[in-house]
């Protein structure tokens, strides 16, 4: 019994490691992905390209423009004569936004009236638009306050301390509001899931396709031995993968691991179990490797998009939120982020772990039943 499992294990490992392309797929591709995506996926908005239409051309208008230019977020690309020209630049995506100052801006200010400033933003990407709006608001509010203080001083000769409620903000767990700290621990989850699912989903269907499954069926191998032989090797490969990815995340991206490494590993083990189950289920349900590959994509798309990795689950419609309950990736994204950024302990994360355990057991049980049916 033990010999058979050992031999299955050796065989699967040889099959994964012998082919250089397979080694590449398993060990190199995920690392490349981790690097590229970790740098690419960011919601930080910096260097917003801005066009300016200054039809007032007064010290006041130049002052506000220089405040935009001086902020670290805006980069003035060009000065144009008309709104039409500026709009054209937005359409060509040469700039993301433009500000337009109408004649009479300074005059109105000096007279103590309100002086409108126009800001037009390319709203295609709502997320970025909101960020740009926030930064612009910030610049303009500061300028307005300054104008008020100056006017007060001019008229009364006294210095005005603007009587307002200052909002002192502090972002916990990610002080510099770096989106990378948020996305990289999620990236780790996606990559680990991807590799595990890919390996396992081919495990049975490949043998079916080349005809070895029929051959295995006439040997005295027991269903349990086959299931162990078809999962444990891939779990091991996944853990090697995890070790590599973890090192890169911690030492290269310098994402602080504030919580317990053991808790993260426990979560990984449960998560890998559920992905093994899903992969084996796909593998036992498909007749060809091609079908399995297609099924993988169909499975992974919603799993990743509804995991909270990019789009927060809290913002999803209630019905979709219910759907995500069966998504194993959702729970491990949560575990990974909390352990990394907040240093949360098991007291807080046990519901996630329990959910992973349940999903993993159900999927593995389903896959085993299917496999047993094939063998019997």
């Amino acid at each position, binding site marked *: 019994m033990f*010999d*058979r499992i*050992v*031999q299955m294990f050796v*065989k699967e490992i*040889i*099959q994964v490691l*012998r*082919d250089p392309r397979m080694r590449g797929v398993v060990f190199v591709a995920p690392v490349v992905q981790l690097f590229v995506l970790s740098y690419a996926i960011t919601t930080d908005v910096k260097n917003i390209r801005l066009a300016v239409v200054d039809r007032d051309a007064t010290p006041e208008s130049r002052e506000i423009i220089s405040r935009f230019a001086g902020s670290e977020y805006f980069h003035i690309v060009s000065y144009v004569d008309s709104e039409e020209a500026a709009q054209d630049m937005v359409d060509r995506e040469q700039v993301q936004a433009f500000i337009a100052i109408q004649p009479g801006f300074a005059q109105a200010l000096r007279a103590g009236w309100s002086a409108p400033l126009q800001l037009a933003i390319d709203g295609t990407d709502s997320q970025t638009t909101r960020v740009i709006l926030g930064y612009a608001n910030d610049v303009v509010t500061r300028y307005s306050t300054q104008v008020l203080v100056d006017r007060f001083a001019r008229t009364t000769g006294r210095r005005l301390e603007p009587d307002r409620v200052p909002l002192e903000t502090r972002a916990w767990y990610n002080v510099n509001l770096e989106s990378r700290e948020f996305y990289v621990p999620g990236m780790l989850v996606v990559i680990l899931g991807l590799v595990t699912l890919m390996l396992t989903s081919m495990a049975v269907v490949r*043998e079916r396709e*080349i*005809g*070895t*499954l*029929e*051959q*295995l*069926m*006439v*040997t*005295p*191998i027991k269903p349990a031995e086959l299931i162990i032989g078809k999962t444990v090797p891939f779990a091991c490969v996944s853990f090697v993968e995890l070790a590599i990815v973890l090192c890169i995340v911690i030492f290269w991206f310098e994402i602080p691991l504030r919580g317990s490494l053991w808790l993260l590993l426990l979560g990984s083990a449960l998560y890998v179990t559920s992905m093994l189950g899903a992969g084996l289920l796909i593998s036992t349900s498909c007749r060809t490797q091609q079908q399995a590959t297609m099924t993988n994509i169909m499975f992974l798309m919603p799993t990743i998009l509804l995991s909270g990795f990019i789009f927060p689950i809290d913002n999803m419609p209630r019905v979709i939120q219910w759907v995500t309950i069966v998504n194993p990736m959702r729970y491990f994204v949560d575990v990974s982020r909390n352990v990394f950024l907040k240093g949360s302990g098991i007291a807080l994360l046990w519901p996630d772990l329990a959910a992973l355990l349940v999903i993993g057991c159900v999927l593995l049980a389903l896959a085993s039943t299917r496999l047993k049916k094939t063998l019997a």
Partner: protein
Amino acid sequence: MPAIVTASSLTRRFGRLTAVNALSFSVERGEVFGIVGPDGAGKTTTLRMLTGILEPSTGTASVAGFDVGRESELVKERIGYMSQRFGLYSDLTVMENITFYADLYSVPVKGRSEAVGRLLEFSNLAPFKDRLAGNLSGGMKQKLGLACTLIHKPLVLFLDEPTNGVDPVSRRDFWRILYQLLREQVTIIVTTSYLDEAERCSRVGLLHNGALLACDTPAQAKERMRGAVLEVRTPDPRRAAGLLRGHVEAQMIDLFGDRVHVATTEPGQAAVQARAVLEAGGLEVQSIRRIEPTLEDVFVSMLSRAEEEGDGRRG
């Protein structure tokens, strides 16, 4: 001698199609039993039921004294099965493939290397033991498949069209190996659509539309063929066969390579008739002679008779 394999009214239906219909036969220890028949006759389905991969719809089978359905684990340890596309792990070496199967069958490590050595020896695979199975030629793959099936010294060996698509030299080698096994009292059940291979079997069963039409030694089968076979040689055998079919009374008129075979109970009369018909049709008759019927003649005439009888089944 007691039968080592018995099938009693084995039947398998796939939906409304009956692939194998009430098959009964028995095979004795040390026999090579050939199951012959055209594609789709139910040969593979029969083997799959005998090896316990496929459950029969009705009927039972026993192999090596154990019931295939109820005691499949005990059966599996005592048989070897080489499916039509024997699955080798092409990314494992010859040696790794053999070791893998040896472990699956729990072949004791003690004495294993001798057993493996012997298998490599007689399959001529010894020089290639470190080569990836995927890089072997078709004939060598076949022999490796056989070696993997034999590693646990099975009592009964099931081979499903083992030499399909293998070159003639490798086929001859393959049969040489099978004969060696017979000396060790291994029972072999082999399906084939090559009739020259059927001639090498100790007994053959002709399977047609899932039913056994005949089950005899090759010699007996030939004796059962009523009448005689005439071999007609003409420059245009295809046209000749057409002409003869229209005008000569016979059990079978069929093309065999560049000749036409005519099976008839009245060979003398048929020969005269045939010559007349062909010459009237403007064909030169090179020769007409009486020949020993081959197994192929026997089966083709049986099959055509079975088809004439309507549903293709013999009562």
